């Protein structure tokens, strides 16, 4: 149905021409779902943009052909492409909110597409639009027709984008990271819907994602991309069981999966034994009946509704939940950036909740409680070099100056695996993983006892996530730190944490030892979360390791 041959795309930039896609060949059969998997910069998105001929300025198809039902998309005139886009090939994008016009009702946006492609008339547009909303299983479609995008959740917006994409009955759907940024249960709902509807209509689809586990679950066949080339294609189960290319092996290894330990995520040659990790008995942080209430327009909003838990010295506690469950509010209160409404936070037995966030800045315990932020890019000052960023807490809270300061910064960089020459770079000159390392180096600059990790790997590629998680485990052992790991990804929490706290709607619904919560969840919400996580097929190495491990235990 779609035959891509020697397809190459290049971009003109300040530093000359950059080859984004270097001659790839792919075939897609009628009714097939193909997954294109790769890390950022692999050229997977550029490929899809080039197929739709919506490349940014400066980008052009350099060579090759992409024959879709007898027409070469690489050569087609813009006029022909307008007919093909939407009617024959549709695309859904990463951020559904950005894909919808924020000031128009979603029903009207759907009508526009239907009428533009002659699928509806003025008279029956509304009925057809509601029909299309019902097709993507939106409950109460009649009422949703009049909603604006901001009134809807991210998952709901993505369904509407999907409805628009399906409106004209395309033959091929290209989904570019359709669930990035969505909660794990929403991700499952959206992906199930995409799979069911494309199957029902006999459509072909291409799923572009960085998540090998997700692709494996929903695609018939996977193509692994790296540096603009396809390194391997094959059925998902086969790729996992017997990866041929070293890069595929690396990706498969790095994907967190049940049965794999932290070190199993790394390439074989980097698998040094994991340092011993035994939490102490003394409580470091005790949270008692913590409440946070925000004043809202329609009455107070209860973000956190009286939660209690204890973190022992040296322990790693996972705080798990979906967006809006109050986990970020909780971590902001613990790190003393936000004042609580009521309740106690005991740090080494002393209540620190009474000290306001403004006064805590000058408290001597400020350096003891630190945080690694979710978005490494956002958490680094664009005007400060890596060196200045790491130096900031040392300058503010210790007397280290001059050569001793430089030595300390270099020691921290080495500890976090940041090459020393990169210290003088600005954030925009660093890669995602390097920025994450700078953020970690800053947080541990003053040897904190308690480190809060707010989804530190959410924005990273899986192979970098694997390295950063292992770095965190090593640092924990070396510096004797206690972690609170905030995350929505249970597979990742399982790897790093001893104890798990599951939150829903501002309350703790379940807590206990990690293995117990993961393997025998008692609360239905925990079971839903676990069920929604993509389950990659078992791997050769992973299963062998697990068998060996359980035998040893």
């Amino acid at each position, binding site marked *: 149905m779609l035959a891509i041959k020697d397809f190459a795309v290049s971009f003109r930039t300040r530093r000359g021409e950059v080859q984004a896609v270097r001659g790839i060949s792919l075939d897609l059969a009628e009714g097939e779902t193909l997954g294109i998997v790769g890390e950022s910069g692999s050229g997977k998105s550029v490929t899809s943009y080039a197929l739709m001929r919506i490349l940014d300025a400066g980008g052009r198809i350099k060579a090759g052909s992409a024959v879709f039902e007898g027409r070469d998309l690489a050569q087609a005139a813009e006029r022909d492409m307008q007919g093909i886009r939407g009617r024959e090939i549709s695309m859904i994008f990463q951020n559904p909110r950005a894909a919808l016009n924020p000031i128009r009702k979603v029903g009207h946006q759907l009508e526009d597409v239907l009428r533009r492609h002659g699928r509806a008339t003025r008279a029956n547009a509304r009925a057809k639009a509601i029909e299309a909303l019902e097709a993507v299983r939106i409950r109460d479609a009649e009422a949703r027709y009049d909603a604006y995008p901001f009134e809807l959740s991210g998952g709901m917006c993505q369904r509407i984008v999907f409805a628009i994409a399906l409106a004209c009955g395309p033959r091929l759907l290209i989904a570019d990271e359709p669930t990035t940024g969505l909660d794990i249960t929403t991700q499952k709902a959206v992906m199930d819907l995409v799979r069911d509807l494309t199957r029902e209509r006999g459509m072909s689809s291409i799923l572009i994602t960085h998540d090998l586990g997700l692709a494996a679950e929903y695609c018939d066949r996977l193509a692994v991309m790296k540096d603009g080339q396809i390194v391997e294609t094959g059925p998902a189960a086969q790729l996992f069981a017997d990866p041929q290319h070293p890069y595929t092996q690396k990706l498969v290894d790095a994907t967190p999966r049940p049965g794999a330990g932290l070190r199993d995520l790394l390439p074989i040659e980097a698998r040094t034994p994991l340092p011993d990790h035994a939490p102490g008995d003394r409580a470091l942080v005790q949270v008692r009946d913590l409440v946070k209430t925000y004043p809202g327009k329609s009455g107070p909003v209860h973000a956190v509704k009286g939660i209690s838990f204890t973190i022992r010295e040296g322990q790693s506690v996972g705080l798990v939940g979906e967006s809006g469950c109050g986990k970020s509010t909780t971590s902001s209160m613990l790190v003393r950036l936000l004042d609580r409404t009521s309740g106690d936070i005991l740090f080494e037995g002393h209540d620190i909740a009474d000290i306001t966030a403004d006064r805590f800045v000058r408290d001597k315990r400020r350096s003891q409680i630190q945080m690694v932020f979710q978005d490494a890019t956002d958490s680094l000052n664009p005007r400060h070099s890596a060196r200045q960023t790491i130096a900031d807490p040392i300058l503010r809270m210790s007397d280290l100056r001059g050569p001793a300061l430089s030595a300390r910064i270099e020691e921290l960089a080495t500890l976090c695996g940041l090459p020393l020459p990169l210290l003088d770079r600005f954030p925009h*000159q660093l890669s995602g993983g390097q920025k994450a390392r700078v953020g970690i180096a800053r947080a541990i600059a003053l040897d904190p006892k308690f480190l809060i990790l707010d989804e530190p790997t959410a924005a990273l590629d899986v192979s970098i996530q694997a390295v950063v998680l292992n770095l965190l485990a090593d640092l924990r052992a070396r510096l004797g730190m206690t972690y609170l790991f905030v995350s929505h990804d249970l597979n990742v929490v399982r790897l790093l944490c001893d104890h798990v706290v599951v939150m829903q709607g501002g309350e703790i619904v379940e807590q206990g030892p990690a293995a117990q919560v993961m393997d025998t969840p008692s609360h239905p919400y925990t079971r839903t979360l676990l069920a929604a996580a993509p389950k990659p097929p078992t791997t050769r190495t992973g299963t062998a390791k697990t068998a060996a491990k359980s035998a040893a235990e």
Partner: protein
Amino acid sequence: MTEATEIPGRKPDGALAHLLHVLRENPVTMLSFGMFAFFLLQALFGALLVPHDPLATNAAMALQPPNWSHWFGTDSLGRDVFSRVVVATRLDLTISVLAVAISFVIGSVLGAVAGYWGGWIDAGLNRVLDTIMAFPLFVLAMGIVAALGNTIENIIYATALINIPFYARLVRAEVNIRREAGFALAARLSGNSHFRTLAFHIFPNALPPMMVQVSLNMGWAILNAAGLSFIGLGVRPPTPEWGIMVAEGANYIISGHWWVALFPGLWLMLAVFTFNLMGDGLRDIVDPRRRT
């Protein structure tokens, strides 16, 4: 795509190399910086280099058209227009630079405080700024100079005051969107007080758009100062100043003595033009993201 592929160890460009890069990249920026240097030289050394005393009158030589000894001709009192135009540069630039500097500093402080703390400070400040902007700004400046007295300092204060709202609003918006940014929170965790977080972490990030505003504003401030002098407020004759010279020359245009008004007007136009063109270049220079 560009991530991690660069040669490790390559240091970022120094300030001078970066400046040269920005100039090379954009010919318009190059032109504007060249013209700025031209005006700067006139302001610094113009008084030493001009061929005639800008204040010396000579009734015998009144209203001569441009010739080899008087390049821009002479005015009704026989003074050399070229010398007067060049010498006036210092005064006009001083007024506009000082006025812009004052409004930059005051506007930045007010805007940053309002944007960071919000609440009633923000609401109060915004209403005051609205009040200033509700007046026709030139008329407000006229009123201030007329009330405070006809001196150069008062022109500077008046020009500064009417420009404060533009800076305050810009800084307020830029600070406000970064107040909850990760790096601002991280700065708090690093032990920075609110003041330090605002002054050393958030505010510098507002500089690139501020530079565009400064440059546009400089041109506007020159026009404003010249405009006040044109209508007889501020600088007094016989001090050479572009606005007064245009005003004096305007009477002679009808009688065919076009050079008396044209040349100071041309310099005024070129100066405004220069500052307007410089905006993008200044922004690129202060933006570290351009240093790739």
